[in-house]
């Protein structure tokens, strides 16, 4: 068998044998003793300093030990609420939504404060999956620095009564004088809010609602209007597709509904001996997206070429179906065998799926036509029960800006919308707002648009609010408050109700809406109260009946669309720019979230910054190095990052950074790529021909985790192809059998009487989305260390997503591998600990006892998987680490069931032992067996694609016990015979 070499960084590929040159300039990294020293010039620490430090610490230890034990109070409730048991968690179902993002969630509430978010398993859309952003949204609740604490008028505190009084008067004047008012919002998923707004519009016809999204899916809707006469964003069934072709759509990462698509996609990627079938996924893209990394075949093209390929594919399909090819573009076989692809699509007979990520109606129209010709509509794509996303209208927003500047509006309100930051004309909007009679922002957290408005009437955090959402037609979910508003804030909807003179609150409004509109749609509950309470408890309501539609396609617009695309392609010349939403930051509204900031981008492993990604060929052609700062379009200056797998003559930039007024974590971090977006024919296509770029000569240093914790090129990931798998299920995993056969050990075999916990990871299903990383951070009180510390390789995440490349740097194959503590039966870390702080439990867990650890770090040294982390500092209550753990409010997010680690101790994944203990206790209390699936660690729970399975190996019928016997199963570095409790299933590619 040909040996595949894997590499983690370009330097590694280029055979630089010296470890010092692997990725980063380590010489600039200060040592711990230098950090202690204040004087930058006097780095070397003398013996005197050492003695001084000794003296001081000795003295303070003495004085501290002499303190008496503090008196602690135990204050019970006056009247204990019935639904609340101190020390026991309560779970409430609610919904995370922001613009086009959506996730039904349940929130864990301990002693009155929300401490963890998990996907709602009752939702048929996500079935318990979530996204990193949904997980991290919890931290926003406690962000006292970024959240507005009370209403403001021109920057000064004002009472709600006074604000209401002034606004009602102004609105009345505007109405009387025939002025115009506008409410600018991102796509509203909440039917109750929509109902409320139209109710307000009935009373105030002068109020216009302008829907605008920073990341828009409008073109898809426009194409469907032109093609089917229906204004829909179709629902895609990736699970039904045998062949998936994506043109630049990052549907597993950021495009449309990734959490839902990841689940569907994984369904087609999980294979077993009994059903060795999986979908084939071909991705055409210019930058390296999460989806591209998962594709079986990834074709690297610059944006204009992608469109050329799309057009050529359409032409090919026309020809193959015996029609006149008016596309007029062909691709030479040397470039790609499109003929084969077109015939494969047609052969799939309705079970292929073509998606396109460009917000360009012509491209979307072609995609519609291809899907229709392939017979996919009604099978893998459906326009009934559509998704409600992408309701924005760029054209009306464009004219809104013009009219705003010409003074046509008297009042403007912003809800969930931050155009000053997200629109290239943001500054003009900001200026125009100052001349208005009334400008209101409902933003709950600091943002650029709010700062330009007269009134800031802060909205509650979504965990403090009543709301509902309909993401897919017929799939409703409710949002309920899980905590009383922390600050003096009020829901936007309550403000509107107040101003229209209603004495109803939005809670009652949502309730009425559900009992009046949705109650008649079901037959399960005979009374409205029962229906409401059950919906509230479950968090979701799904209408069973699905409508079916006839697909009367109209091909008339296609020749025009093809012409337009041809014209677009002919204009493309030179370097092109592609703009994509950052996986963690997305549109930037959660930029002040330190969890998301420190989440390594799964592809580049950069934390805390965005960058301009360029290909290695482009870099060598223009003599650019990692971190060289360049200027684009005279607008932004940003560092370049050399990224294998990007199209040559192409630069990829990501949105979500460059906030100027978001809070201490986000401000002035990275650059704002929204400034580079342009509006073409009333759409923001997110790709452009680059007019100009130049080097500035300055440099920049990234905090990348890419080369951290490297396993030095051993057979870490194992992969094979579907054809080989069909011949031999152990294909690519031959080493496993070899090591099983040749294992030798001095140690006695461990006997686990009760449980033996294990985790199985299906590399085929893992998309690398990093939701598990944030979920783990949230569950286990993992601290945020900041960019500098990440650069010193001190990131504290208990699990990481390793990314391996193979092949050439132009278009490498990419494999993701989640790595956490392997909980080895023969753990190398255990027998080197001089104080027995790390030991093996009777249930197979490799334990670390913080209060016993003295911090020798021998275990870190001896761990072959590099999963142990050392607390170099006290990260809680330390001004050096001014993130959520440095304030009383921020610390409310901490899980009381997990110790906050002190400086000087080692920590690592515990298999969420607190959940294991809780799960076992629950079974014991209920006097029953512990069932498979009762215990779910945070990473497993949050995984949208179900790639992780946790369970008890001693339970013969458990899923892990079955999976560990699978021929694809292997362990990391099994030649060391550490006997890990974490197993991996080989990656199988269908090509």
């Amino acid at each position, binding site marked *: 068998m040909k040996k595949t070499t894997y590499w983690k960084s370009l330097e590694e590929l280029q055979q630089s044998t010296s470890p010092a040159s692997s990725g980063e300039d380590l010489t600039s990294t200060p040592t711990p003793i230098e950090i202690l020293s204040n004087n930058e010039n006097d780095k070397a620490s003398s013996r005197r300093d050492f003695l001084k430090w000794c003296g001081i610490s000795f003295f303070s230890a003495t004085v501290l030990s*002499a303190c008496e034990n503090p008196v602690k*109070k135990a204050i019970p*409730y006056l009247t*204990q609420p019935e639904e609340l048991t101190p*020390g026991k968690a309560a779970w409430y179902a609610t919904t995370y939504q922001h613009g086009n993002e959506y996730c039904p969630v349940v929130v864990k509430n301990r002693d009155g404060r929300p401490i963890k978010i998990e996907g709602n398993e009752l939702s048929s859309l996500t079935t318990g999956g979530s996204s990193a952003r949904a997980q991290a949204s919890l931290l926003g609740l406690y962000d006292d620095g970024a959240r507005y604490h009370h209403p403001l008028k021109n920057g000064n505190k004002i009472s709600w009564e006074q604000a209401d009084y002034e606004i009602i008067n102004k609105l009345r004047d505007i109405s009387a004088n025939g002025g115009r008012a506008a409410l600018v919002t991102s796509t509203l998923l909440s039917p109750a809010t929509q109902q409320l707004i139209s109710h307000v519009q009935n009373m105030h016809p002068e109020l216009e609602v302008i829907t605008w999204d920073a990341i828009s899916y409008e073109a898809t809707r426009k194409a469907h209007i032109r093609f089917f006469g229906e204004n829909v964003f179709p629902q895609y069934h990736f699970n039904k597709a045998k062949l998936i072709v994506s043109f630049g759509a990052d549907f597993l990462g950021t495009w449309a509904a990734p959490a839902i698509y990841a689940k569907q996609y994984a369904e087609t990627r999980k294979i077993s001996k009994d059903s060795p079938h999986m979908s084939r996924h071909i991705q055409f893209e210019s930058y390296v997206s999460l989806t591209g990394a998962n594709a079986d075949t990834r074709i690297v093209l610059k944006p204009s070429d992608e469109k050329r390929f799309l057009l050529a594919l359409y032409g090919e399909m026309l020809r193959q179906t015996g029609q006149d090819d008016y596309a007029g573009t062909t691709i030479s076989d040397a470039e790609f065998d499109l003929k084969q692809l077109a015939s494969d699509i047609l052969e799939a007979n309705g079970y292929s799926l073509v998606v396109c990520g460009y917000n360009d109606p012509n491209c979307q129209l072609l995609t519609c036509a291809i899907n229709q010709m392939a017979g996919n509509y009604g099978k893998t794509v459906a326009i009934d029960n559509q998704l409600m996303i992408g309701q924005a209208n760029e054209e009306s927003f464009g004219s809104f800006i013009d009219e705003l500047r010409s003074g046509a509006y008297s009042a403007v309100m912003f809800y969930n919308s931050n155009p000053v930051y997200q629109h290239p004309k943001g500054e003009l909007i900001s200026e125009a707002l100052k001349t208005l009679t009334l400008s209101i922002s409902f933003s709950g957290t600091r943002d650029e648009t709010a700062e330009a408005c007269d009134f800031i009437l802060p909205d509650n955090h979504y965990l403090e609010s009543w709301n509902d959402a309909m993401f897919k037609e017929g799939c409703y979910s409710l949002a309920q408050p899980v905590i009383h508003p922390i600050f003096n804030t009020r829901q936007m909807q309550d403000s509107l109700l107040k101003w229209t003179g209603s004495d109803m609150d939005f809670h009652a409004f949502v309730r009425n809406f559900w009992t009046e509109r949705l109650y008649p749609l079901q037959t399960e509950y005979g009374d409205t109260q029962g229906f409401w309470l059950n919906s509230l408890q479950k968090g979701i309501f799904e209408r069973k009946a699905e409508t079916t539609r006839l697909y009367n396609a109209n091909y008339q617009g296609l020749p025009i669309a093809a012409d337009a695309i041809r014209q677009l392609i002919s204009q493309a010349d030179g370097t092109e720019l592609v703009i994509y939403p950052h996986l963690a930051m997305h549109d930037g509204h959660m930029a002040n979230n330190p969890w998301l900031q420190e989440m390594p981008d799964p592809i580049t492993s950069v934390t805390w910054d965005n960058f301009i990604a360029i290909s290695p060929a482009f870099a060598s052609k223009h003599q650019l190095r990692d971190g060289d700062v360049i200027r684009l379009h005279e607008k932004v200056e940003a560092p370049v990052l050399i990224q294998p797998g990007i199209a040559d003559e192409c630069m990829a930039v990501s949105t979500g950074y460059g906030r100027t007024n978001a809070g201490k974590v986000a401000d002035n971090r990275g650059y704002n790529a929204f400034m580079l977006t342009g509006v073409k024919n009333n759409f923001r296509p997110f790709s452009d021909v680059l007019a100009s770029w130049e080097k500035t000569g300055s440099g920049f240093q990234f905090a990348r985790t890419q080369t951290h914790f490297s396993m030095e090129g051993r057979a870490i990931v194992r992969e094979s192809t579907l054809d080989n798998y069909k011949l031999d299920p152990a294909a690519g995993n031959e080493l496993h059998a070899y090591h099983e056969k040749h294992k030798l050990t001095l140690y006695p075999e461990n006997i686990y009487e009760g449980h033996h916990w294990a985790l199985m990871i299906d590399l085929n299903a893992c998309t690398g989305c990093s939701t598990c990383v944030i979920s783990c951070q949230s569950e286990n009180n993992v601290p945020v260390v900041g960019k500098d510390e990440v650069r010193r390789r001190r990131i504290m995440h208990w699990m990481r997503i390793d990314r391996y490349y193979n092949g050439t740097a132009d278009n490498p194959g990419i494999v993701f591998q989640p790595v956490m503590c392997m909980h080895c039966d023969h753990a190398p870390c255990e027998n080197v600990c001089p104080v027995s702080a790390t030991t093996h439990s009777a249930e197979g*867990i490799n*334990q670390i*006892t913080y209060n016993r650890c003295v911090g020798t770090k021998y275990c870190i040294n001896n761990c072959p998987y590099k999963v142990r982390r050392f607390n170099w500092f006290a990260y809680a209550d330390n001004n050096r680490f001014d993130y959520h753990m440095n304030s009383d409010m921020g610390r409310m997010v901490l899980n009381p069931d997990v110790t906050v680690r002190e400086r000087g*101790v080692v920590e690592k994944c515990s298999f969420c032992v607190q959940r294991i203990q809780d799960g076992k206790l629950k079974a014991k209390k209920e*006097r029953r067996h512990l069932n498979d699936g009762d215990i779910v660690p945070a990473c497993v729970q949050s995984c949208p694609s179900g790639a992780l399975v946790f369970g008890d190996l001693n339970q013969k019928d458990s899923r892990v016990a079955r999976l560990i016997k699978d021929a694809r199963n292997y362990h990391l570095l099994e030649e060391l015979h550490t006997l890990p409790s974490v197993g991996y299933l080989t990656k199988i590619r269908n090509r």
Partner: protein
Amino acid sequence: MHNLRKAGKSRKFSTTTACILSVFVLTGFLSLSSFIMASHDENPQDSIHFSRDDLRKGERLFKGLMPFASGLHDCASCHYTSLPDTINWNPSAYDLAITWMNEEDYSIREKLAMPLGTRMIEDHQGMSVTAQEEHLLHAYLWEVARQGPGELKAVPVNAIIFWGLGLLMALALLDMLLTKKIRSKIPHVLIIVVGLVVHMQYAVAESRNLGRTQGYAPDQPIKFSHLIHAGENEIDCQYCHSISRFSLSGGIPSNETCLNCHNVIREGSLSGRFEINKIHQAHESGQPISWIRVHKLPDHSFFNHAQHVNVANIECQSCHGPVETMHLIRQEEDLSMGWCLSCHRDTHVDFTANPYYEIFARLQELMLNGELDAVTAAELGGEDCMKCHY
């Protein structure tokens, strides 16, 4: 309740890092600390109503240094003026003062004339004070409320022995090396050796007890007697501490739970009405009662009541001691890790009662075959670190 277990930091004992030298210094501080008194604010502000003389006279009157006109002896023999006030069922001077300060226009004379409940009637029979005396007593109580309760001074025996021995050792060393008043070196060596042994013993004992509070029995805001409730009246522990079956927390009962009975029972046999009234006051004012926490584990130890009370059926007394014999709740055990583990090693797990334990199939079989008598908690992993520390 919600602050019962906060997200805590792990604390490493400083003894692991301190060297032998430090132990001596440390022990000295520890012994000293036992008699460091909480200092009160020492700049008396003259009141609007009361002169300094009034305050002084009032105190003398209250403490019986100056007779009352009616021949009443003193107040302080029943209403203690200093803390701890552990055995005395009568309200302390401080308790009276802060309760009355919240009332408008309170009057001792009126309270004496209209005593509340039989206990107070009996104890205050024939007592009366004049208007002048009342003024002085008001002055004193005002001062007590402002200054807080006084505290009893403990004699620092340990510290005296420690420092005394230290001095003796220093003298012996001095004499042995320099002054040489005593020729024979045997006494010197003896003193130093004995001194060192005693110092070491102190050091070990004190550092072992670092952070431990065995025997801790602080005064509570209400003179609540477990002896009367759990002992004499035989109320089940879980009647009040009901959540201990379900939650990790044992659960201090809410005020409402007290009122279940004390809505009817308004007077206690020992404390009269004064203490029970506090429950009603809390209910009316909406201010929950701030009990002083007695049993507390370090923040890095996770103890779950439900596991022990519900699953293992352990008696509450196994850990909390004979609570039904205590007026004032006291920490009976040292709550050390060794103490936890010794119980885990000795306690037999009842396999038959709970289907959960069927997972231990091999052990079940051995027991059925008679090859094994019993299985202890430790044998099922009860000694694992991560059973309690995570």
